[in-house]
């Protein structure tokens, strides 16, 4: 029931934030209407990083406590992270086309980093699907998730060094937020979008976690069923 309420609130919040971003806030002076893509784009990128962080922490949790609930959280984080990563890349390309004149900008460190991020976690998800036994799958996934998370800052740093022209991080540097050049309306809209997306993320995480637990329970029941059948055959022979 609580989850359903959360889902409804998240839906309303995302719709409201989208309306504000599309209709209420004025377009950017330089980038025009395309700048509106920035709101969901930044929010998705933030949630992608959050998801992969959750996956790495849940992996550590599994290795430490040996509780498969951690593994369900790790799976939820990775899957939802991949979706938000893909969404962020898509938004970035849509924005790049009018503003940069190209969809793909090799010199932009964040774009290339994000593409690698997608490859890392699609690999993670494929690895999960190729392992049947739950404990073994959890261990393999946990350590691959941890190493991938360790790799992200190195990837980011190296590509940044390689050459960059991306807009500097908007939230990371407070002077830009307080700067009159970035009006409060823009900042407020972005924060609203972040909040709305985070609510939706939370809802999706809970639902995916519940689904993963249900899948695990079914797997376990099927395994027990097999054992039982084998035992019956053994006894009747």
């Amino acid at each position, binding site marked *: 029931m609580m989850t359903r309420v959360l889902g409804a609130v998240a839906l309303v919040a995302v719709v409201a934030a989208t309306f504000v971003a599309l209709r209420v806030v004025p377009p950017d002076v330089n980038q025009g209407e395309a700048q509106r893509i920035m709101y969901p784009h930044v929010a998705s990128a933030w949630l992608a990083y959050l998801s992969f962080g959750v996956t790495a922490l849940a992996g550590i949790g599994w290795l430490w406590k040996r509780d498969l609930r951690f593994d369900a959280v790790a799976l939820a984080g990775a899957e939802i992270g991949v979706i938000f990563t893909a969404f962020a890349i898509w938004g970035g390309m849509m924005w790049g086309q009018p503003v940069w004149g190209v969809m793909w900008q090799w010199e932009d460190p964040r774009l290339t980093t994000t593409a690698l991020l997608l*490859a890392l976690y699609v690999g993670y998800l*494929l690895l999960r699907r190729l392992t049947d036994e739950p404990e073994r799958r959890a*261990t393999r996934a946990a*350590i*691959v998730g941890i190493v991938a998370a360790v*790799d992200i800052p*190195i990837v980011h740093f*190296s590509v940044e060094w*390689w050459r960059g022209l991306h807009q500097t991080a908007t939230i990371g540097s407070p002077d830009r937020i307080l700067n009159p050049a970035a009006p409060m309306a823009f900042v407020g809209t972005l924060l609203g979008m972040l909040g709305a997306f985070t609510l939706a993320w939370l809802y999706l995480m809970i639902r995916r976690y519940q689904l993963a637990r249900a899948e695990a329970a079914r797997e376990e029941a099927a395994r027990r069923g097999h054992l039982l059948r084998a035992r019956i055959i053994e006894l009747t022979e």
Partner: protein
Amino acid sequence: MSALRRDAGIALAIARKDALSELRGRHATVSTLFFAAVVLLLFGFALGPDAERLADAAPGLLWLAVMFAGILAVNRLHLLETDDDALEQLALYPVSRRAIYAGKALGGLAVMLVLGIVVLGAVGILFAVDVAGAVVPLLVTIVLGAIGIAAVGTFYAGVTVRLRAREVMLPLLMLPVLAPLLLAAVKATAAAFAGDPFGELGAWLQLLVAFDVVMVVAGAATYGFLLEDG
């Protein structure tokens, strides 16, 4: 301190075992070397025959050939351990898991070093770049790159060695993680070939060192879990 020395001894014993079986059977080196040579030839066909363009692309081609061949090498070294459940036997030894990881990675490093040096020579000949003029920085780059590939490769080969789709999953998991190594190694190699006009060689080598340290630590810390139930 003595525990560390014992670990080092065990790691060397495992590496020696791999090296010995490699010297006798040549499972990894010969096939990987020829694979790297074929990759270089195909790069030449794909980008050539303009000599200038090939020389420009040489650092990137060198490292792609080393990385692609390296995937095969670390895979071979781990396949050795699947015969007769040798990996399970290895896991049963009452020694620290870090030592086992270090041993496998050292074996991988030996193969990667041979591979890197031979490919460097081949690139010098095929793409007409001046290797002799910058031997020391090139060798340092090769060593640092080989350490990183061996560290990451050993770890991912451990993850994938018991998978059905091993041949696809190993490169799929390994190559994105190696992206920073590729960037830094290619930049360092290009700087070395050009005589380091902008004084950037040191910075790229430092990045390689940082990558190597992080990946060796991460691999050593997690490889044990793989041996236990991965």
